[in-house]
């Protein structure tokens, strides 16, 4: 840890969804989110230069991504959806939450990103022969943020990791840490899922039809 990253609390949330009053899934959908409650070094005053903290968040992000995947009980190859968010305590500003955009995305790509042979990857290996798909974690990591009181809930948006337009993977997971953020804290959040909504059936681009590998379609 460094001057900027002072972790006060780590809160992990994992859900196994068996059904939503429809046919039970053969394999439950696993969704999870992890929140780190940090001291906000910029709380209470306006600071023109806040970029040093952005860089400092990178190792924490990677660590959180790994912890979340472990808590979900799956390997990175099983992650199909992702999102991120931040809740800033009352003595901070929304811009402090925006510091999480780059390191949160970096964390996801460090864990899930891969450039190599697709079939080998899905079997848990790497490989080095691209076959149409140039890599993984191609899509922008959808996000949201707010300033809120202790216990504030954030609906963290989630989308498919390789193509933002995959309709079955549009989702959101509500995350809140009881008692946090205090006024001088920031909560940074990562979210992941292993698949589509449990009874997805509204058409649109399907994950198996991703073809452009541009992060969108």
């Amino acid at each position, binding site marked *: 840890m460094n001057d900027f990253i002072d972790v006060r609390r780590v809160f992990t949330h994992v859900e196994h969804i068996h059904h939503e009053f429809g046919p039970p899934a053969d394999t439950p959908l696993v969704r999870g989110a992890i929140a780190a409650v940090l001291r906000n070094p910029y709380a209470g005053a306006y600071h023109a230069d806040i970029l040093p903290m952005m860089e400092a968040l990178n190792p924490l992000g990677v660590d959180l991504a790994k912890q979340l995947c472990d*808590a979900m009980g799956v390997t990175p190859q099983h992650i199909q959806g992702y999102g991120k968010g931040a809740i800033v305590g009352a003595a901070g500003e929304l811009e402090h939450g925006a510091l999480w955009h780059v390191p949160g995305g970096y964390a996801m790509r460090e864990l899930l990103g891969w450039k190599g042979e697709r079939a080998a990857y899905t079997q848990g290996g790497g490989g080095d022969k691209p076959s149409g798909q140039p890599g993984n974690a191609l899509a922008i990591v959808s996000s949201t943020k707010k300033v809120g009181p202790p216990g504030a809930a954030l609906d963290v948006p989630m989308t498919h990791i390789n193509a933002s337009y995959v309709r079955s993977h549009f989702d959101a997971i509500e995350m809140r840490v009881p008692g946090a953020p205090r006024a001088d804290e920031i909560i940074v959040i990562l979210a992941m899922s292993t698949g589509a909504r449990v009874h997805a059936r509204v058409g649109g681009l399907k994950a198996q039809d991703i073809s452009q590998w541009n992060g969108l379609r």
Partner: protein
Amino acid sequence: MKANIRKIIVQLDEIHQDGGQSVSPPTRRALAMAVIANPYAGRFSDSLEELIDIGEELGGLLGERCVQALGIAPDLAQSYGKAAIVGEGGELEHAAAILHPKLGAPLRKAVSKGAALVPSAKKQGTLGTAVDVPLGHKDAAFVRSHFDAMEARVADAPRANEIVVAVVVTDSGRPHPRIGGLQIQEIVGQDGLR
């Protein structure tokens, strides 16, 4: 499986620092919740056998999920608690049927021993209703450092015909206990109280 489970949620809360003082090792509380269909929703039944059996099933399942989330051997668990939130189509007695007759034995097995009463709370509620699960030391209810609570809440449950069942297991007490009382090293562990 007796219970019709819609979803299972597990949360782990690690406190590394409180009051400006570091907590080492961090205190850790694990919460496991099951969202289940209430077989008696919308009707009065003298017998609540189905819920009593569901309580037995969930005591083991949720207790084990908590211990698994903590990543500890069962005998390293320190405190526990349980709670239920009944949707509008059910009665408070339905929560009692789940929590009190049979849930405790398999939960105690999951945490090994468990001489003390399992502290509990119940309420009726709707989607997103929170219940504070009371916590006490599993072998000696008078241990003051382990009186605590953990908030349990499911954003989309309970629907009217559902019940949220929650179990909490910890491997620690409060972050910086300093109000005296019976200490963990003084536990006898026979009568469940001291």
